[in-house]
């Protein structure tokens, strides 16, 4: 996995003719329908689309949380369907970071412990300097010993972002990370994610419903009915908003 050099691939993750089908016969749902997409290393990509269009499904299948029905999905050069359950766990631990909309943190662990959790699970020593760098960047330096229930929603999301960054994964998947936050707090988190991409070279893929949030990204991919219907580079909020309207969302 370490061999995935920039020369052989500039994509941190990609899918090839990926389909995900739920149910059978009459109740069949094609959550993903022949999706081929790649996410460039060091880029901040937003995925948008109407509810039920398959955004979460795409993320989950790419992150190794859920198998595809047809097609392939890669993290770096590793094809996920070739991995067993244990290898997938290791891959998630080492190469993938997650940020969910809510309930990102383990309530019994302090902010710091939540951040280093993937490394603790792997029994590897976190890179102390890097972790401190991440923590101070997210502005949590004075909050590391607090429990999640002693943190505000925005602070909790920042811890989640810090956790995703702390192990320097190949790629971070974020499913509506700011969905539960007010626009100002959300803006701070998005700012921070963008700077992680720009300054630290992190790769982030983010699902969002919000045109403003999407405008923080380098590129927006539009999904509808499990298919990629469009994409937009260097988006602005207005452009995204107009585009969504045109998609009849």
């Amino acid at each position, binding site marked *: 996995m370490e061999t995935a050099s920039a020369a052989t691939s500039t994509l941190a993750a990609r899918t090839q003719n990926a389909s995900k089908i739920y149910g059978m016969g009459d109740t069949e749902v094609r959550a993903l329908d022949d999706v081929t997409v790649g996410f460039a290393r060091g880029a901040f990509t937003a995925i948008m689309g109407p509810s039920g269009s398959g955004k979460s499904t795409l993320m*989950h299948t790419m*992150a190794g*949380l*859920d198998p595809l029905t047809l097609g392939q999905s890669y993290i770096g050069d590793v094809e996920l369907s070739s991995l067993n*359950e*244990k290898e997938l*766990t*290791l891959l*998630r*631990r*080492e190469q993938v*970071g*997650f940020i*969910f909309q*809510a*309930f*990102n*943190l*383990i*309530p*019994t*662990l302090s902010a710091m412990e939540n951040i280093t*959790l*993937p490394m*603790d*699970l*792997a*029994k590897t020593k976190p890179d102390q300097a890097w972790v401190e760098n991440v923590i101070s960047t997210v502005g949590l330096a004075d909050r590391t010993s607090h429990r999640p*229930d002693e943190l505000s929603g925005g602070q909790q999301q920042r811890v989640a972002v810090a*956790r995703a960054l702390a192990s320097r994964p190949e790629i971070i998947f974020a499913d509506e990370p700011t969905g539960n936050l007010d626009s100002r707090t959300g803006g701070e988190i998005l700012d921070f994610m963008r700077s992680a991409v720009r300054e630290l070279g992190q790769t982030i893929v983010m699902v969002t419903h919000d045109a403003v949030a999407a405008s923080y990204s380098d590129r927006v991919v539009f999904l509808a009915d499990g298919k990629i219907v469009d994409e937009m580079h260097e988006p602005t909020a207005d452009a995204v908003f107009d585009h969504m309207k045109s998609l009849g969302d």
Partner: protein
Amino acid sequence: MFKMTLRSVFSNKIRFLLTALSVVLGVAFVVSAFVVTDGLRSTFSDLSADIYSQQDLTVRPAAPFGERDGDLPPVPDQVLADVAALDSVVEATPAIFAGEVLVVDDLGNEPETGGPPVVGVNWTGNDALDQFVLIDGVGPSSPTEIAIDVNTFADGDYTIGNEYVVKGPIATETFTLVGTIRFGVDEDVSVGARFTAFEAETAQRFLDRQDAWDEIALAIDGDIEAAQAEITALLPQGVEVVSGDVSQAEFNDSFNEFLGPFRTILLAFAFVILFVSAFLINNTFNIIVGQRIRELGLLRAIGATGSQVRRSVLVEALLVGLIATAIGLGLGLLGARGLIALLESQGGEFPDGPLPLAFRTILVALFTGVVVTVISAMIPARKASTISPMEALQETSSLAESSNARRSIIGAVLALVGIVATLVGLFGSFEDATPRLTILGFGAIVSFIAVAVLSPFLVRPVVGLIGAPIAGAFGAAGSMARRNSLRSPQRTAGTAVALTIGLALIATVTVLAASLKSTVTESLETRVNAGYVVFGELTDAQVGEVAALPGISETSVIGSGEVLLGDDFDTDEVVEAESVNFSDIEALVDTGLTGDYTPGGNHVVLEKNAAEDYGLGIGDDITLSFKNLNTEIFEVSGIYEYTDILDAPVIIDTTTFTTNFAEADAFVLLARGADDVTPAQARTQLDTVFDGDENFEVNDQAEYLESVDQEISSLLSIINIFLGLAVGIALIGIINTLTLSVFERTREIGLLRAVGMARRQARRMIRWESVLISVFGGILGIALGLLFGYALATAIPDSIISGVSFPVGSLITFVIMAIIAGFVAAIMPARRAAKLNILDAISHV
């Protein structure tokens, strides 16, 4: 509302099953206890009806007090002749019941002894009056013939017509087997006793009833009461005539006397199980209410009243209780069979017979099952009713843990009441055992509840401490296990308390047994110097033979029987008296005799504690009566101290014993090897006298110690089997809590898995949480058990337990047991946690 409750009950079947299971077991135990004892009672009353229904009157030795045993002089032949001559007497059938009689079979084997009685009887051919029925061949009619019962015949290797060696109570002779017999009219009901029948006069001779009978059954023509009066006038002193009804009632009474404590003990175990179950149910409902908090809050928000919410929880408990009781009833019926098998495997013997399910049993089962469940759910139900509609809207709402201040006050009050009651029960003075036990039981129950209320305070320090090495050794999974068990001290403590109670009881019993053992061992080792102990009904000839052995230097014999302390046969206390010659025994046992003992005189020696009880000292007079109706005044000439060998409250001299007891046999023979022979030589010589005769048990001191040890151990193991059930229920409790916790933390576990927790680590996390809970419960239980055991051992008189000893090995075993229990309990929940589908888990609300 009711429909919703129903749905809630059945929506989570595993949770429902686990909750119900503990009640099922408790109810099953109660049902088994009643069914077994009812079954035995009805079997025996059928039997007694069988035996006595045909007899209008029975002539027998009068027992002025105590047991109707061999100490009563039998009824002389003359009485039979006199009574049979009366016009009103249609039939007079004499009977002898005497043991032990063993018929050696064709392969040289003897029937087993040690179980039900193996006795010899006289054959009358009158099965209406004595219930012996001929099955095959003919009845014995000459001095050389015998018949044996069909069970013995089937178990051994016998052929009708062959000659067999028969070992009797006083002699061994050869007889010809001429037939097989059965006792009782009803084939389903067999007493379990084994019989050998002889022709009447042969029975009198061979069974040691010279010209006498144990009983005479009479069939009367005309007015029975008039006949009874007529016969009474004829009878010599020491012989009485009673109606069949009286005999039957006595038979039933004596059986009930045995059955009563047996049932009480079974019910006590059932109670322990239900008590433990109550905590489990309470804890489960607490957790369930906590998990449904949002749902219940929503209900409140849309208009349900607090009492409606409370009722819905109680109705759920009611349903659980009802269904569990129904299952428990069925299981109890099966369990009754198992219980009998279990007790038989531990040496008990029970007659075969039907096991009836009385309506009363069903009522008791319903009451215990349903009431226990509903009461246990009361506190959680009250909490549920106080949930505010706001709670439905909160993101991470959890049921408020009850306030610490209130908890500590309630706990302290309960602990105080429990301790005071326990101390009063232990050290107070009571006339009777019942109020003492009631107060003790109450004290124990309240103490346990106090422990349950207070133990959440101990969770942080104790679990924190024992969790530290686990957190250190098992990385992230270990430290999360520790934190999870510290998360809700009330839940952890509530889950552990069942194990605490189970292990506390086991540890208490173990400490008592160990203390008892060490007391006995110590007194035997330091005070008994006999070398050899022989048990059995010893003849004078045998005693003489042993004394004459060159390898034996000192001997002493002990006889035993019942005496009455006073002369009022109806009210005075019956105690055991032992006969011994102190000039012999002093060389073999350190009796601690103070004062003096003069054989032959009207002197008795009292045991020290007994003398205190009776308020008597050296020089005082004591009146004793014997079963031969003799009453004498004795002078207390000495006081001795109890040992396991010599332990009766009253010691009489051998002359008094032989004059006043019909079967004045020695039953213990103490002997010491001579100085100039090796122990092995002395033993060999001793064995030649008893020649492997099963009626005698020859022990050297080590063997004797071993047998005492064994007795205590086997009692301990029976008790522990039952208490083990309580531990089993505690296990279910842990499984239950963990399953609910895993369910509750679904999202969290999903998240852990998403960020890289391996399945193994998830399993490990749950497993160590389980072990922490069980070890917490175990340590608490063992600590309590040591405390209780210490208190009890101190309260029990020194003559029985003189010092407390803590069996360190067993206690370590218990801790290991607790750890294993934790591992076992975690198997299912851990698997569930590991198997959680990550996506489902993340989207789980």
